[in-house]
């Protein structure tokens, strides 16, 4: 297949943004190929977010279901999505996914202190990693698994998905100050946990 060349576009990201805009417009009128393209483009980040949000909550197996739910909700509302508006599709999808994860956790109503006990069930996909990196990944997964869900959501959105403070605030409907304080506490907790791993 010949690559589509758009000389007027300065960067690959711009080209990607144009492709996505076209896919959104086509998906809005029900084009299955465009829907598939959007899923393909975003399923990795949506899936990763959900797996990290649900790790250690006892809901680890629901990541796939909630990822489906995320896309289904997005497609149902897509005709109202403005591809030229301020909201990016990726941010919107991850926001929906985060909310669904928090809702699922809330429904289970796990007391915050139970997260410590459950985090032993947190896993990391380590097969492609060197042993040291795998151990570090396991330690991070366990430490994040101990964070209460509201802190975890802020942490995951910031650290793994590059959300700006204001984007996290909008996604979780909290103040930017709350975002910063939760992020700081989450990182501090993570550092403490990792130091324990180092000593061990």
């Amino acid at each position: 297949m010949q690559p589509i060349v758009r000389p007027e576009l300065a960067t690959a990201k711009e080209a990607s943004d144009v492709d996505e805009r076209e896919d959104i417009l086509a998906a809005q009128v029900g084009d299955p190929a465009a829907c598939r393209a959007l899923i393909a483009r975003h399923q990795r980040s949506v899936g990763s977010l959900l797996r990290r949000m649900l790790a250690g909550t006892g809901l680890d197996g629901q990541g796939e279901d909630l990822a489906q739910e995320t896309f289904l909700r997005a497609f149902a509302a897509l005709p109202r999505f403005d591809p030229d508006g301020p909201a990016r599709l990726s941010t919107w999808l991850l926001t929906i996914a985060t909310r669904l994860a928090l809702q699922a956790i809330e429904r289970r109503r796990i007391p915050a202190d139970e997260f410590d006990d459950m985090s032993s069930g947190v896993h990391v996909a380590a097969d492609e990693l060197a042993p040291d990196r795998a151990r570090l990944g396991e330690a991070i997964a366990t430490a994040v698994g101990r964070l209460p869900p509201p802190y975890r959501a802020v942490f995951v959105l910031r650290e793994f998905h590059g959300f700006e403070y204001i984007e996290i605030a909008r996604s979780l409907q909290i103040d930017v100050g709350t975002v910063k304080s939760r992020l700081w506490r989450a990182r501090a907790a993570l550092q403490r946990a990792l130091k324990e791993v180092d000593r061990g």
Partner: protein
Amino acid sequence: MDERSTRVDVTAWRVAPLSDGFTDEVMRRIDEPVEPSSVDALDLLEPAPDDERLALVPRSSQARTARAPATLGTIALAVAAAILLVLWLARPLPTEAPATSAPTSPAMHVEAGPVEALDRDGIRRVIREQFQPAAKLCYEVLQINDAPRGPGAMQRPYVSPRGRVPLMFAVAREGDRGIVVRAEIGVEPDIDDRTFHECLLAAMRKSVFEGPFSKDPVEIEIHLVFGPDETSLLDDAD
């Protein structure tokens, strides 16, 4: 807060990808109706909470400012405010709240709900016209209770309590109007005062909404912003 001092390299935490059949499964279900939920994808396209939250005081006066301690004048005003508050809260309820099982999932922001649910403008109108005056009185009582007292009080600086208080409530249909069947303070209120919270909740429970209504109770979360108002406690400062 130095962000660099708390940064952790988290890239070592890898997670398994979604299954190979994920796209096909989504496409198979794409025409299924989406179940109502507090996670409303359309609602998430709305403006940021900063644009939406209901400010009870002008933003310009929200800065932490030192105020003079309570004087006789302000104490008299507070007493009057407290009396008004008690009278307002003591007015008869339109009807008894029905025993209903409120939804357990938390509401996200101001939920519009299904087609026949409460609309945002209607909610804002009730908040502004019914709830806000009482909430201001609650805040005034809080300020007075919080002010320095006793010898030397006049010389001690007073910083008014200020900040955000999330308030969640559920509105259910009763006859041709909606009543508040549940109200609670949200997580991490900036002003953590039990009496103040109870005052706000009592005020909210008195509010009566106009339809149209959905079949199920509609859960609503509002963010109240309180701060020292240098002009008048009873001004509308929306």
